[in-house]
């Protein structure tokens, strides 16, 4: 590995992020707690919705909601890392990174890797809790692999979005800009009931929402009835591509002022 290569920068930064997390376990709490609270609220509090006429989902309401919460945790896991990037800029640490890194794109990928690794722990915790809550898993190993890969992509996409914002604004005050669009996108998908049971304007919006396909495909994986797989992955990779450009362009902007 050559000094200053993208890979070395990426690994060094990911190591730093994880060291911070290891020394400050409380930083781990928000990305862990929110998905668990949401899972409890949705799967626990809204399970009656499966009795609504037309609610056809093989896997049970717990797994129905698990997929949404998993994707939500993935997306917001990326956003939380974005907060950290903004803080690094505010505290001047970003300048150190820029000076030290020969290949600066490694900085973006380093944050992405750290976000992925952190989210993996969240996903493990979430999965364990869901299984304890008797979540029905209809899918086989390949299906579940597909589900987690989708979620992984969403995590990186979320990070790239937040990274682009963080590098353009270089302040934690841009936090709402990082999380609000993601939040709206998530909640304008079929969160509580399948798409077919949504009425009015929200049905139309959800149909156009790219996350709807990822969510539907994820639910198909967990119930063992894969649905819209090709389109879901196409959208996921397209998001990754577009947001990757967004994130790297953000880095270019930051380079001009640091």
């Amino acid at each position, binding site marked *: 590995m050559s000094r200053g290569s993208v890979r070395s920068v990426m690994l060094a930064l990911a190591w730093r992020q994880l060291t911070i997390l290891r020394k400050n376990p409380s930083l781990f709490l928000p990305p862990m707690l929110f998905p668990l609270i*949401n899972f*409890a*609220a949705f799967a626990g*509090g809204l399970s009656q*919705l499966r009795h609504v006429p037309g609610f056809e989902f093989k896997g049970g309401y717990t797994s129905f909601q698990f997929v949404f919460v998993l994707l939500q945790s993935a997306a917001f896991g990326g956003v939380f890392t974005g907060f950290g990037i903004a803080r690094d800029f505010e505290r001047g640490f970003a300048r150190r990174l820029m000076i030290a890194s020969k290949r600066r794109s490694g900085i973006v990928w380093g944050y992405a890797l750290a976000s992925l690794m952190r989210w993996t722990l969240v996903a493990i915790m979430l999965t364990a809790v869901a299984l304890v809550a008797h979540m029905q898993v209809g899918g086989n190993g390949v299906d579940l692999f597909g589900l987690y890969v989708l979620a992984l992509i969403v995590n990186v996409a979320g990070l790239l979005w937040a990274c682009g914002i963080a590098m353009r604004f270089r302040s934690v005050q841009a936090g709402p800009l990082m999380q609000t669009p993601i939040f709206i996108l998530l909640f304008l998908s079929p969160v*509580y009931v399948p798409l077919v049971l*949504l009425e009015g304007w929200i049905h139309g919006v959800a149909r156009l929402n790219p996350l709807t396909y990822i969510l539907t495909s994820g639910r198909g994986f967990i119930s063992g009835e894969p649905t819209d797989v090709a389109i879901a992955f196409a959208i996921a990779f397209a998001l990754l591509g577009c947001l990757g450009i967004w994130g790297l362009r953000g880095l270019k902007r930051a380079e001009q002022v640091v």
Partner: protein
Amino acid sequence: MSIAMRDVFLIAWRSSRRTMRQPAAVIVPLTFPLILLAVNSNGLKAATQLPGFPTHSFLAFFLPFAFIQGALFAAMTAGTDLARDIDTGFFNRLALTPLRGMGLVVGQLGGALTQAFLQAIAYLAVGLVLGVHFASGPVGILVFLVLALVIAAAWGMTGIWIALRTGSGEAVQSQFPLLFFFMIISSMNLPRNLIEVDWFRDAATINPVSYMIEALRSLVIEGWNVQALALGFTVSIGAVAVAMGLASIALRKRMTRT
């Protein structure tokens, strides 16, 4: 005006002025609950088809949620602002005046209540424009507003207690998941009798937030439910009293002046 009233008025004046001059503290709590109201009231509309659901309008059912979420934001604002005062030494400046401790605590609510009042007007206006009909009539709307402010005072005082106890804005923010948990593990999304999962229903039953929501909701969809209102007001006033008691204990430890 008595000295105590003067102190409260001056601190409240300052607190509300400061809050209104922070756009993020005003705009986000105003818009975010409305966005969620729009999304959830449509996304969960199917719930009205469940046997025993008390109304045909999920918007009417869900309207109180905006006020509770707004109160949560008010708590964060009140707590963070006071924590900042402690951090910057402004708290010491106030301690050097004849200001009585409780005057500070009660006065700090001024900002939270100003914010909550503006929010309440906005949420009510949106609800009425979108066709929510108050079964309790115009007097019910006034009672609704009063109760909403008492609820905001309870949450705001909780934020103040946390600030006095920890002296740190970050610590106040880190309590957000816990307060969010209280908000969400309640009868926010479905009536308690329609919550299928036992532990969730039991948790919602002992959660005081459920009674706050149900009291507000009763004014919208039922009319004059004396029991619901009595419970709602008792719980809210009780929460204010408990939080104020805790805040005064924390204040005694924080303000070590002789």
